[in-house]
């Protein structure tokens, strides 16, 4: 694999809660290569949102804290960069496609206003009010920006972009709003897109449109993408590699087809077995719930729910092992000498 554009190394994040320190992220490693779409899959409470927030630098720091690790973007550690440098990256090199489009757009601004500010002043940490209004009056600059914006709206297949510019978010359908969010994320010519469940709130036919669009865009522009979701099927469609996350740990990683056709980790196979399938075979679910992050078990975090659990799993944490080429699992079942 080529040098990764985004590399999360040994990241550990905790939260100070009423009951104690909740060790939410437990030393995870994650890489996104150039021109690659990587999926991060997990259910509610597994820590994928916290991971995303840490990468973006928007983790609320008083209750939360990064206790270990680095997040390298093209070699620079995002966790230690000064704010000025971070601002230059956000929106430009690293871009977010948020969840729930109708909530992520500011309801009191038209589409045009939301875009203009971004295009004209992106990357700057602080603007004085005078300069801000001066820029707005600069007709030539505004026109230039508008041209750019309309071109981008066409790229995300919005029909009649000139009219859409004057719409308020409440006038947009879910699909259109999501396209606008994608356009917003692309306008800074980023190198990597961080997609936070962008199709969860959408109808399934619209979801298909958006996924096809995202695939096309990432391929055409050689973009990398980290796609965070709980939907396994969508991951299969859009990602090349996938990380399966459970209770703050990465439990399995590999090529998307391999993982889903031959899952190795008991959690992954449990997840896949839980899905109702078109073949109408039985589906099972997984007993139990996610562990308490404050009183984390010493060994494998999946131990209480695992049907293959052995005594050793309770006390010793499994390490990530390459079981097949580029297919990694963190499970005692695959440690040499066991089974």
């Amino acid at each position, binding site marked *: 694999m080529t040098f990764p554009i985004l590399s999360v190394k040994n990241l550990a994040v905790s939260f100070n809660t009423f009951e104690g320190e909740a060790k939410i992220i437990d030393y995870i490693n994650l890489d996104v290569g150039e021109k690659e779409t990587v999926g991060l899959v997990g259910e509610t409470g597994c820590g994928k949102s916290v991971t995303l927030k840490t990468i973006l630098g928007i983790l609320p720091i008083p209750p939360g804290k990064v206790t270990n690790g680095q997040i390298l973007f093209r070699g620079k550690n995002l966790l230690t960069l000064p704010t000025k440098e971070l601002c230059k990256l956000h929106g430009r090199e690293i871009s977010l496609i948020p969840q729930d489009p109708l909530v992520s757009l500011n309801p009191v601004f038209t589409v045009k206003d939301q875009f203009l500010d971004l295009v004209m002043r992106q990357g700057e940490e602080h603007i004085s009010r005078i300069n801000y209004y001066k820029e707005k009056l600069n007709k030539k600059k505004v026109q230039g920006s508008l041209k750019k914006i309309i071109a981008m709206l066409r790229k995300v297949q919005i029909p009649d972009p000139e009219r859409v510019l004057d719409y308020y978010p409440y006038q947009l359908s879910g699909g259109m709003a999501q396209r606008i969010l994608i356009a917003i994320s692309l306008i800074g010519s980023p190198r990597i897109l961080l997609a936070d469940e962008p199709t969860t709130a959408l109808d399934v036919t619209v979801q298909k449109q958006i996924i096809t669009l995202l695939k096309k865009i990432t391929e055409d522009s050689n973009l990398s993408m980290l796609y965070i979701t709980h939907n*396994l099927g969508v991951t299969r469609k859009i990602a090349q590699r996938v990380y399966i996350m459970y209770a703050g740990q990465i439990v399995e990683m590999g090529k998307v087809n391999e993982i889903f056709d031959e899952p190795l980790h008991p959690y992954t196979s449990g*997840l896949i077995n839980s899905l*109702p*399938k078109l073949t109408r075979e039985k589906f099972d*679910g997984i007993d139990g719930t996610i562990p308490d992050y404050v009183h984390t078990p010493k060994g494998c975090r999946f131990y209480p729910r695992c049907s293959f659990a052995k005594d050793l799993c309770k006390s010793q944490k499994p390490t990530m092992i390459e079981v097949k080429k580029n297919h990694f699992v963190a499970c005692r079942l695959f440690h040499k000498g066991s089974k």
Partner: protein
Amino acid sequence: MLEVPLLNIRNLKVYFPIHQGLFRKEVGKVRAVDNVSFDIKRGEVFGLVGETASGKTTIAKTILGVVQPTLGEIWFKGEDISHFNGQRRRKLTSKMQMIHQDTSSSLNPRKKVMELIKVALDIHQIGTPMEKQNEVSRMLRYVQLPPENFFYKYPAALSGGQKQRIAIARALILKPDLVVFDEPTSALDVSVQAKILNLLTKLKKEFNLTYLFISHDLSVVLNMSDRIGVMYLGELVEVGGSQDILTNPMHPYTQALISAIPVVSKKELTMLPKIPPLKGEIGSAINPPTGCRFHPRCSYTIERCTCEKPNWFQINEKHIARCHLLKGKNINFK
């Protein structure tokens, strides 16, 4: 052998008026449900599938009397209940129940679990206080929640799956004939969803229930239902047995819907019809497209589709679909 269906919807129309202006003049109507007919036989699971604005939630609410139909009839156990209200409607509540889409909001946050479930018995005055408590215990065990731990908890202390089980216990304690599920597992994680769905299947057998299962998730509906109805923008476009609909979808929308399912396994990928994504967006129910409401997005649209509503065509005994392109295939069915 003609068996009277448990529920029979005939030509149901539900329009909501839109009022605007100082004098609240009616400026238009939301045509939420337009001329929908289907029936549900006793003991079966009927799945109703559709996306936003399809009208499926409105149908659920109309059956249960939360919303009044504009036109049409709803026959339940031999009576037309479409205009029941007040005391007659209240009597019906012990025979049909609903599980809401947003379970968290459907549980009164200031009541403990025991209260939440017991209230059903209080309202219908079934049993002495001790008997009521024991019955609640029994129901909690049926939904796999040990009463000792859950009796005195508030909803805020429960997980999504647990809340869903409470709602199910509450609905079933009255031993209804029909249970309507409005997106019962959409807010749940996959691993929890599977358990709830299996529980529902188990309870159906145990209590001899009939289900109307509403969801936008076609894989779930295909697995849970015996027969499925597909809705688009307020109209029913196809009805048939689950396996039939899966292997032989006749309506272009049904085909698009199936092909959009995000499947995980290789085998399922081969089962999907290979069609490109639908163009456009779901239209508005206020000004729906003329003729066949799906025509603006359909790849096979012909002249007729834009002005004439298609008739129903019968494909086999249980399978019907409504599309102009099916003409010449089989008998006209109305």
